[in-house]
């Protein structure tokens, strides 16, 4: 190599680095500006209501009461319902797609997952409102109340549009995300490990449980973390099926409200103080998402540590 070409390569290296640093710096800047502007815009609400925004029970535009505890509860409850169903079904489908199903079915199911992931959320909302709501109201909710004898949280009259329906719609929305990401994580577990374990006499189920799942754990947790963040922040579809009532839902069959849908519905025509209060809701939502990510990372690091990777 000549001196000249070396020079050239150093120069181009410098160019590459500056582009990469520039890009990451810009990204950090955008995030900082975003965060700071939300914090600043919410200041009037914090000085008006203080921490009662987080623990207050009444959210009312007409009395300038901005307590979001019921709205936070609605957000957490819908997300919990969605995850309760989506994690086992999503991870189970991912395992089936990679290791159990025959080739053609595998491709069919994989493309279905990708198709579902590309459906806009308003379509899920419409489907929830027009198709699922009557079914929940007539069949699912009375059925659940019958099985449980109407005990908490299955009491109160079935309404269709409800916390449970919002959780159900979210479940369908995050399912493809969990399946697709877990499938990719499971697929990259080295085939040698899989076959090695089979060759020493383990059954397929044992191999999946002891080799595949621990190996794919990081990816699966990542999938669940992302899906949780999406469920917490989903706006349009939830707004259409939850009833938008910022009160404590006494049962799963009752209407409720979520942070994102409250922001979307009330922002357009809000008084300045209310805009600040909605900014505070956005901040709370971001904090919740950050906590989920932190737990996700901790879990991944912990499992990597136990597995001896770190």
């Amino acid at each position, binding site marked *: 190599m000549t001196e000249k070409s070396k020079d050239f390569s150093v120069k181009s290296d410098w160019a590459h680095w500056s582009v990469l640093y520039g890009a990451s710096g810009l990204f950090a800047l955008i995030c900082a500006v975003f965060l700071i502007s939300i914090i600043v815009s919410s200041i009037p609400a914090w000085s008006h209501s203080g921490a009662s925004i987080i623990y207050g029970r*009444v959210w*009312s*535009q*007409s009395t300038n009461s901005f307590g979001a505890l019921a709205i936070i509860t609605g957000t957490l409850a819908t997300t919990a319902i969605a995850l309760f169903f989506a994690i086992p079904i999503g991870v189970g489908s991912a395992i089936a797609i990679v290791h159990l199903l025959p080739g053609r079915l595998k491709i069919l199911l994989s493309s279905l997952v990708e198709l579902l992931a590309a459906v806009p959320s*308003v379509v899920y*909302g*419409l489907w929830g*409102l*027009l198709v699922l*709501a*009557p079914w929940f*109201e007539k069949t699912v909710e009375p059925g659940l109340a019958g099985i449980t004898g109407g005990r908490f949280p299955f009491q*109160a*009259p079935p*309404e*269709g*549009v409800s916390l449970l329906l919002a959780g159900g719609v979210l479940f369908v929305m995050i399912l493809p995300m969990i399946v697709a990401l877990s499938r990719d994580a499971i697929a990259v577990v080295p085939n040698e490990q899989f076959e090695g374990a089979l060759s020493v006499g383990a059954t397929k189920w044992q191999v999946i449980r002891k080799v595949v799942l621990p190996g794919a754990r990081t990816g699966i947790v990542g999938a669940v973390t992302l899906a949780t963040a999406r469920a917490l922040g989903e706006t*349009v579809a939830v*707004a*259409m099926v939850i*009833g*938008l*009532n910022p*009160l*404590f*839902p*006494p049962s799963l069959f*009752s*209407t409720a409200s979520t942070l994102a849908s409250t922001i*979307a*519905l*009330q922002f*357009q*025509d809000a*008084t*300045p103080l209310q805009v600040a209060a909605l900014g505070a809701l956005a901040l709370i939502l971001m904090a919740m998402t950050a906590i989920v990510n932190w737990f996700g990372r901790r879990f991944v690091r912990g499992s990597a540590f136990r597995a001896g990777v770190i």
Partner: protein
Amino acid sequence: MRIHRTVRLAVTAAAVAVTALSMVAVPALAGTRATTGDRYLAADTVLNKAATIGGAGSTFAAPLQNAAQAAFMARAQNATINGYQAVGSGTGESDILKKVVDWGGTDVPMSQTDIYQKEPSGYNIRASAFLEVPIALGGVAITYNLAGLSAKTPLILTASVLANIYEGHITNWNSAAIQALNPKVKLPATKIVVAARADSSGTTYIFTNFLRSAAPKVWATQPSKAVLTLPTGGVAGSGNAGVAADIENTPNAIGYVEYSYVLLNPSLLKGVAAIVNKAGKALTPSLAGIAAAAAAKADITTSNFSIDWQPGATAYPIAGYTWAIVWKVNQTSDAQGTLLVKYLDWLSHSGAVNGTTAGQDVAALQGYVPLPANIQALARATLLKVTGSRGQVLLGTNGG
């Protein structure tokens, strides 16, 4: 919310089709009450310069705006009116303050307090900078979704019972108060699901103003466009279309929607309550009943505009006007300003001109009551106050 836009689009398409069909038949009918020699109306569809305008706000006025805009553009070359955005009265007011639109639609004339709450900080906009043009007269229907009840025998409800339902004091359909009003109806023992608007709404104002006027002991709060605090289990929907969809999809629900949405949404017709009026008569909403309410209080102003709870045996008790808010001094080009006042003038008048019909004839086909003659005159007088860049009156006969 986008779904309701979709629903609205479908409704609009249907409305436009109905209007177009009726246009063929209506001129003959309208010709009988032609205001001959109305030189303004004759000039409204004549524009020398091409211009584009748009409005947003009241969903109460949306079925009319959707149909009327299409009809106006078909008659007036050079006129483009962007699709009306039915975002609610509160947002209509915010939008005209921020000059996002050429007119804001509201069911409650904008007060100075509204402006203080909404204007960008640092501004000091006076209410007198705006003019409010009455564009339609309608009613608010109380509809319910109860299986097993016949549409032929509507539930009878009073303001006091409605106020108690919305306050959460009456929680079951078979409560004694409702049963006493409907002795022959077998009411279900289910909980009432209370539906209301999720956005700031003029329909909410008209409804709460009715409760406040007719049952002040139960409904203690002042009438307001603000989102209502609902009882547990209540459902809130975005826009009149959203509330209509919620009632349609939620058994045991009750809610309030603008009358024309009931006409456009036949499944709601299954349960439209008869409301006891000031004279003690229970009436379901009808064009005649709304017209009677307007006639009982002929002279309205922008500060005394409510026609809720009017006397007279035939007056439907929940009714109101809807208004277009414009800047007194036009804020856009003269061509746009001219189109704006001409469109609103055409919209707020009835009568055949050059063999076609004007906006209030379109309104009659959409479930509104045509504005009374004195209110049409009020609209004309108001629009003649809108001035252009040189202080000239924009609503002229010259075609602008």
